[in-house]
């Protein structure tokens, strides 16, 4: 039960952050919320199903560009609508991509998903009439639950209503993923991770379930992407670049993929550590590359693995 207490405390702390008045750090929490949601999806694939995608950024970009399109091209500002359309777009993209990629495992799957991410990147980059090319597209301020908060300036909006909206979405996403992981599908996915051949022999349709996981992951990625686009107000093709996917995997590994909350911890540590390191040196990639190397070699179960070494995903 101490886990429940720790969670409640964390939630309370997150809710209180805006009240501390440090706007810079409050706005830094926003990409953390977004990445946390996206990473839940990635971990469903990796931690629970045993499949590593190097193209998750594709769906983050889908969500972000959906927000950009709806707000600046169509003038639709209801964030709830944006989310629904983003989810729909994710499903529409995930179905053909998933059907093709899921036929492969391990390295081939990683390479294929990387290729699809880059395909989307090149589409976003080259078709600048549609997408704004490398200049990107604007994302206008959305309305939350119908409210536009006209009296608030950008910072006020981001550190106030949008902050709590994002936090609420993270909480909802956590609940949904918790249910998925504890469901029959979740158990079947874990059996696929443990031993795909045996899973088949006890009646689990390995390919089909991997496909379901892929689509669900895509949805979470797109929701994260939509959330990610609002604070900066801008989306650009680099969101789909393969190194962005690589960073997502980095975050996941950092937090720990064998624990349900690893993704959230990974997103948090990555965002804040990156901020700190960037303020110290422009060579943050060198530092982060070294961190990733250390994690991969010495702490493959990430930070959660240090905290709770026996706690495996779903136990």
């Amino acid at each position, binding site marked *: 039960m101490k886990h429940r207490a720790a969670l409640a405390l964390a939630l309370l702390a997150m809710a209180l952050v805006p009240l501390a008045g440090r706007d810079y750090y409050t706005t830094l929490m926003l990409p953390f919320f977004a990445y946390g949601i996206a990473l839940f999806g990635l971990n469903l694939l*990796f931690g629970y199903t045993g499949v*590593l995608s*190097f193209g998750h950024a594709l769906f983050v970009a889908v969500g972000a560009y959906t927000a950009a399109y709806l707000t600046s091209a169509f003038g639709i500002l209801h964030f709830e609508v944006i989310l629904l359309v983003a989810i729909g777009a994710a499903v529409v993209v995930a179905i053909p991509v998933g059907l*093709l990629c899921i*036929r*492969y495992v*391990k*390295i*081939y799957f*990683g*390479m*294929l998903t*990387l*290729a*699809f991410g*880059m*395909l989307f990147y*090149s*589409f976003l980059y*080259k*078709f600048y009439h549609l997408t704004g090319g490398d200049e990107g597209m604007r994302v206008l301020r959305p309305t939350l639950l119908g409210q536009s908060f006209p009296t608030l300036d950008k910072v006020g909006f981001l550190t106030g209503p949008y902050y709590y909206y994002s936090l609420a979405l993270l909480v909802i996403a956590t609940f949904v993923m918790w249910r998925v992981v504890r469901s029959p599908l979740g158990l079947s996915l874990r059996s696929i991770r443990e031993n795909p051949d045996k899973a088949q022999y006890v009646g689990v349709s390995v390919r089909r379930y991997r496909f379901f996981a892929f689509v669900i992951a895509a949805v979470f990625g797109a929701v994260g992407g939509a959330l990610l686009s609002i604070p900066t107000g801008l989306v650009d093709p680099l969101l789909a*670049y*393969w*190194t962005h996917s*690589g960073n997502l*995997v*980095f975050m996941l*590994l950092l937090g720990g993929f064998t624990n349900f909350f690893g993704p959230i911890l990974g997103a948090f540590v990555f965002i804040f550590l990156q901020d700190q390191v960037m303020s110290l040196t*422009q*060579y*943050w*990639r*060198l530092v*982060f*590359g*070294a961190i*990733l*190397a250390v994690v*991969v*070699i010495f702490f*493959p179960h990430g930070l959660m693995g240090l905290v709770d070494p026996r706690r495996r995903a779903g136990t």
Partner: protein
Amino acid sequence: MIEAALAIVLGGVFNAAILFLVSAGLQLVFGVQKIVNLACGSFYALGAYFGISAVQWALGAGTPRPLFLAVLLLSGVALAAIGPVIERLLRTIYARDESFQMLLTFALVLMFEDILRIVWGPRTHVMGGGLYTLYGQLPFGAVKIPVYNLLVILAALAIAILMGLFLARTRFGRIVRATAENREMSEALGVDMARVYARVFTLGTALGTVGGALVVTSTAASLDMGIELIVDAFAVVVIGGLGSMRGAFVGALIVGVLKAVSIATYPELELMAVYMIVIAVLVLRPAGLFARATA
């Protein structure tokens, strides 16, 4: 008209030659060690930057200008010295899942990008000095093709043939092929895996750095050239089949020429055309055109 088309294709073959070198390095390392080395693009970038510096230093020290190509080749080969060092690092996780190995190479990609930035700065570097056209240009109707391109194509061909001979005829080459086919058996037969891995990785590294060195005469060296190249290299490897040298050759030709043609005809499609071929190949022949069964 025909000449213009041929010129475009030859440009594509030049790209293909470079791409082949880097992809061959990727294939070799994957075939033997089963590691997908995302950092091979970084080696390529390193070869490019170092190549420029080496040539500038050599020319400044009095080397006759026509020898710059030799300087490039030598500098590329010299950089292979980092191969054993990196291999040592990767050795720590050989027993782990492939995903982790790929992630470690991603860590290297990140680190290398900043290392390049630290040593050479953030701006692109150009070889300059008219070296690209030093060997002259062949007139081809209305178009002129630099002899340099042809030299590089010949060099890549020579390397391809040498590699083929090496793998087929020499003792070490046979060990490499045997290990790629069945590692446990090789080990059981007394092959020193550590040595094989170190050498193969070094060779793979050299191919990447030489590729970078050769391309930098005509293309500027930039910080993201490696990250961009890896995507093309992946396309080559998927089309040709993981682990196959012949596949690297054919795949590189397809990708190189296709990119050149689509830049000239439908620029929007450029990269997308390559990926559509990748997807088509995967749908029709999932293992690639020349894949070999890996044990």
